[in-house]
């Protein structure tokens, strides 16, 4: 973290946009953490989540597509989908070129053990590298509105390809639910109906800008067909809240091993580490600070653990390997102008 002044309850720093502190050092977001009818909303959300599963189970070859990154959250989610929710699952991993070797081993081991069908999809490296560079050093995401408080430029561009690819796959195979391992700090609601149409609309709106920056192949990775098939995006961690300690215990029995050489905020992707560094340099705060602060307020993470995650140093060699693949240097990152 670049700032020494941090909220005394969560981990939001003084450099976070629009923040203020009271005399006890508590930030304005901790002072009013929840909306007025949050409990009623949470109860309704859980009911809707379970209802959607009930309505869609057994209707098609697969009940659900699992966006499986190989990280701890999606690993436990996959286990939950198979063993607790008894869903017929197609697991899908977008290989962005930076999934660690250990993570790939974890993925293969877990899908075999849980006996689920699984697909690796690796978009062309040249396109993905161009996209990441444009996201960090160019203005690729300028039309995407205010996202910087919650996600890095790199992650936003990558997750866009993941979401679009998952939606395309779900449409092709007629899979009515897409599960993603977003935490309560990463996504606002547990069920989003036809989110893929929103992606399509958003892309359509900014198509020219994306094509200018990424070439016409952008359509292949970021556009979606017009299809009346209905898909629900499901985020189970918003209705079944689990602590990190619980998740790690649960996935250990599947043989999941934490990869080395990553920072405290990722458990599968080496690029995320560089994305976090770039974000801190550009914006002056860590892109995970908001999410972790929400988890602290929900009692799912201690402040000490969150601080540890944000400040954990990364092996320099691991970062260097990623930078070489991206074709940038640490000097390029250091030179990023503060927004």
């Amino acid at each position, binding site marked *: 973290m670049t700032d020494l002044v941090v909220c005394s309850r969560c981990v939001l720093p003084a450099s976070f*946009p*629009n923040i203020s502190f009271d005399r006890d050092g508590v930030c*304005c*977001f901790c002072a009013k953490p*929840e*909306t*007025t*009818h*949050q409990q*009623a*909303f949470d109860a*309704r959300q859980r009911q809707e989540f379970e209802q959607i599963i009930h309505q869609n189970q057994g209707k098609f070859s697969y009940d659900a597509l699992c966006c499986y990154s190989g990280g701890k959250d999606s690993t436990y989610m996959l286990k939950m989908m198979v063993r607790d929710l008894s869903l017929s699952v197609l697991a899908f991993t977008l290989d962005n070129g930076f999934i660690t070797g250990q993570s790939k081993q974890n993925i293969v081991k877990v899908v075999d053990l849980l006996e689920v069908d699984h697909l690796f999809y690796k978009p062309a490296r040249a396109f993905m590298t161009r996209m990441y560079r444009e996201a960090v050093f160019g203005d690729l995401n*300028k*039309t*995407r*509105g*205010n*996202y*910087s*408080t*919650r996600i890095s430029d790199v992650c936003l561009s990558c997750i866009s390809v993941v979401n679009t690819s998952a939606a395309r796959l779900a449409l092709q195979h007629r899979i009515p639910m897409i599960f993603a391992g977003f935490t309560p700090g990463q*996504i*606002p*609601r547990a069920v*989003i*109906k036809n*989110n893929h149409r*929103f*992606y399509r*609309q*958003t892309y359509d*709106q900014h198509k020219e800008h994306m094509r200018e920056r990424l070439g016409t192949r952008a359509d292949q990775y970021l556009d979606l067909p017009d299809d009346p098939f209905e898909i629900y995006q499901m985020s189970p961690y918003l209705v079944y809240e689990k602590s990190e300690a619980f998740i790690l215990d649960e996935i250990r029995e599947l043989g999941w091993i934490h990869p080395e050489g990553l920072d405290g905020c990722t458990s599968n992707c080496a690029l995320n580490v560089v994305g976090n560094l770039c974000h801190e340099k550009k*914006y002056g705060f860590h892109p995970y600070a*908001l999410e972790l602060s929400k988890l602290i307020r929900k009692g799912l993470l201690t402040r000490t653990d969150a601080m540890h995650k944000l400040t954990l140093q990364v092996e320099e060699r691991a970062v260097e390997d990623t930078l070489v693949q991206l074709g940038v240097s640490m000097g390029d990152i250091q030179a990023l102008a503060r*927004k």
Partner: protein
Amino acid sequence: MQATAEDYVQCILEYLKGAVLLDPAEEIPLDKSLLETGILDSYGIVDLLTFIEGEFGLAIPDEDITREKMGSIRKMAKYVELHRMAPV
């Protein structure tokens, strides 16, 4: 006293100027689509609608999430005024 649509406009603006906007001085249009003006992306819209439901005790049905009913901050505020019974 019953809150007015203008009260809800202010409440929504306050939320956006909280943990959403990178630059609090950014001008937010009240009568234009936040998506089309590039203020929010699809996540941001879902997040804002979720805030409105949680804050004002509403359950917004899918069929109401349209440009006509939710296409701007003023439209959202009007929607809350019409569908919310309890005062702020």
